[in-house]
């Protein structure tokens, strides 16, 4: 048992660090540092840089374009990406539908879809939740009825993140009703967003941002060739995907990075005042979250070590999801508290490109803290709410 990196691992870390520092354009670094929202084009540009380097999909099998890295290398990559304050990878293609396609799709689907996902040529979104089926995902009602060699899709998906930019959507749809269990009769379907009958309606969230949407399907005709795997087995595929998603959502390295940013911020004096870092109580709260994050880092490593030893990511990934999001949210709270009165101003325009820094209200990015806090209350709700995760652990880990 060792915590230290081998010389090879250290060299890899240096390579990754230098790559993010030198190969990612300054404007992306700069926008990230100033909390300026990336345009979709920025996002794609960043992901294509990763692709060019061969690092777009560390978790994919090598034959489909993965890196073949060890667990430790993947951990180093994630950590360095966070420490370099890189954008988050838009997960719907590379993290979600990609693995489903290479695991359960046919050869034609693999050839048709995987390269574009790997190269970020196509923007995907995820059609799981419906207005009536939130935590009870399997109760979904969107229907896909086979008509010749096409499915006719009717229904509504909700909370569809970034659907406004999406070229394609992967959906869980009901292909047969009246099954013994509601998990049966669900299929996994890929739908071109340009198909007639697909419409996207924005949902504004409490922070005032437009991230999520309703996606309506009205007699949308989808080629049967877009069915992944077997009809009626979609729930199984979807569950695997959710477990991948949950493992990813722990986001430990990124939360650790944000906590260090908060430490830096707390060390700065405003106009000669005593900096917040002199407030031992506040610093104790930072330290307490830091300890929990370090623990979660090792919980994640242990889980991944088990996965790399051949186990599928199981119910343990649920712990990563709810604990990881709790800690993200704890850090959000600390940012808000650090901002004091400057948590109040709502000035989204000053986080748009081109806004001069010296005209910003508040010091640095203080006024972004409340919006971030409000927006990330979603983290304990989406991807299977934290309550659902606890149900999963109770049932599948504790056997209750």
């Amino acid at each position, binding site marked *: 048992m060792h915590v230290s990196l081998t010389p090879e691992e250290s060299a890899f870390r240096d390579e990754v660090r230098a790559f993010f520092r030198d190969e990612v354009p300054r404007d992306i670094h700069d926008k990230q540092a100033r909390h300026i929202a990336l345009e979709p084009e920025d996002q794609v540009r960043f992901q294509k840089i990763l692709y060019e380097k061969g690092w777009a999909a560390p978790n994919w099998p090598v034959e489909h374009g993965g890196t073949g890295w060890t667990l430790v290398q993947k951990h180093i990559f994630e950590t360095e990406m966070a420490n370099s304050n890189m954008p988050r990878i838009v997960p719907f293609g590379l993290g979600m539908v990609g693995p489903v396609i290479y695991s359960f799709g046919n050869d034609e689907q693999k050839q048709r879809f995987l390269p574009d996902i790997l190269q970020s040529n196509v923007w995907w979104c995820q059609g799981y939740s419906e207005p009536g089926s*939130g*935590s009870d995902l399997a109760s979904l009602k969107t229907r896909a009825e086979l008509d010749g060699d096409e499915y006719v899709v009717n229904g509504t998906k909700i909370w569809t993140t970034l659907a406004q930019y999406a070229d394609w959507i992967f959906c869980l749809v009901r292909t047969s009703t009246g099954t013994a269990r509601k998990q049966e009769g669900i299929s996994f379907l890929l739908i071109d967003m340009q198909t007639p009958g697909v419409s996207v309606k924005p949902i504004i969230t409490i*922070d005032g941002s437009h991230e999520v949407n309703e996606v309506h399907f009205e007699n949308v005709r989808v080629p049967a060739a877009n069915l992944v795997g077997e009809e009626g087995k979609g729930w199984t595929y979807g569950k695997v995907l959710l477990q991948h998603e949950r493992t990813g959502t722990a986001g430990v390295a990124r939360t650790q990075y944000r906590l260090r940013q908060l430490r830096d911020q707390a060390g700065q004096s405003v106009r*000669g005042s005593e900096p917040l870092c002199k*407030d031992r109580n506040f610093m104790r709260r930072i330290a307490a979250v830091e300890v929990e994050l370090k623990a979660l880092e090792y919980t994640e490593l242990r889980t991944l070590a088990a996965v790399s030893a051949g186990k599928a990511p199981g119910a343990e990934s649920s712990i990563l999801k709810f604990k990881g999001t709790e800690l993200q949210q704890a850090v959000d709270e600390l940012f808000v*508290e650090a901002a004091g009165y400057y948590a109040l101003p709502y000035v989204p325009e000053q986080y748009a490109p081109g806004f001069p820094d010296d005209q910003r209200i508040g010091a640095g990015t203080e006024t972004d803290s409340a919006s971030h806090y409000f927006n990330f*209350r979603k983290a304990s*709700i989406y991807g299977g709410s934290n309550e659902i995760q606890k149900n999963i652990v109770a049932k599948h880990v504790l056997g209750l």
Partner: protein
Amino acid sequence: MDFSLSEFQGMLADSVGKFVDNEYSFARRMANADSSTGYGEDTWASFCELGWTALPFPEADGGLDGGPLETMLLMQQFGRGLVVEPYLANIVLAGGVLCRAANAAQKARWLQPIIAGDLQAALAIAEPQNRYDHAAVETRAVRDGDTWVIDGKKSVVFNGGNADLFVIPAESDGISLFALASDTPGIDVQRYRTVDGSTAADITLSGVRVDDGALLGAAGEGLATFDAVIDDAILAVAAEAVGIMQALTDKTVEYCKNRVQFGVPIGSFQALQHRMVDMLTASEQSYSLLLWATMACADRTDEAKRAVSAIKYQVGTAGKLVGQEAIQLHGGMGMSWEVDVGHYFKRLTVIGQILGNADWHLDRLLD
């Protein structure tokens, strides 16, 4: 010791409650917040007609002689209805200073119009460097012949973008309080919206020159007034927070009774039930402490000062729990701009951040 309401108090609570229930729908609230001023001018006019803008002032000043208890009853209902109008800024804060420190001429000029609804005012509480220590004022007022020259910067002044009148604390061998028309040369106002749907402003004062007519009370002796008004404001927002917590608890229970998942209302899940019980408990405990703190201040007991910090700490911690749980149990609905719950949550968050957060006030309890 007595918990019963006087007849006037009962009528007041009743009338504000009815207004909130019947005249102040969520749609109305959002429309008011979306207007150019960030509040409803019609709504404010109703407040004046109903006498609420006169509530906390002595009869001699044309007020209704209300005290902390009356403000509590009103603000609790305002919390329940998520009232966005600047009662805190205009009446409790700016009005509070004027009422305590202004002379008769000044009251006639500024306080009467406030009561009548003809003047919007704002008290500058914070500066960029002083976090929650409102007494650590670096804005300076220097005597120059017959005039005062004021320089400094004020942060996040509630209602600052709408105010015709600023009440500005400044250092001049002690704190002096000045009433400055917002169009006085040298005042720069950066107006913005706030996350709770309201508005505020950062204010820069550069060589602002006024005579003694702008000075409220004696020079250098404004701190006691400033302190007292801050305490009043803490009680007021605590009452508002209690109203919000009660509303959020009710709305969450109601939602969970109706939201069906897995074939049953989610309110039938024991884990969620216990969490709603925790919400209720936090809300009830806050209401209890509010009663104590407000009565202690009304009766001016020895505990009054500690009581103010205790209730602000309490609504800070309880408010965080109730607000976060309300969102969580509403799921995606709680995240939606179109649904009221998220807006209650945001206002509760703001209340936790202003006038000293929970940590700050717990620390004050040690001294």
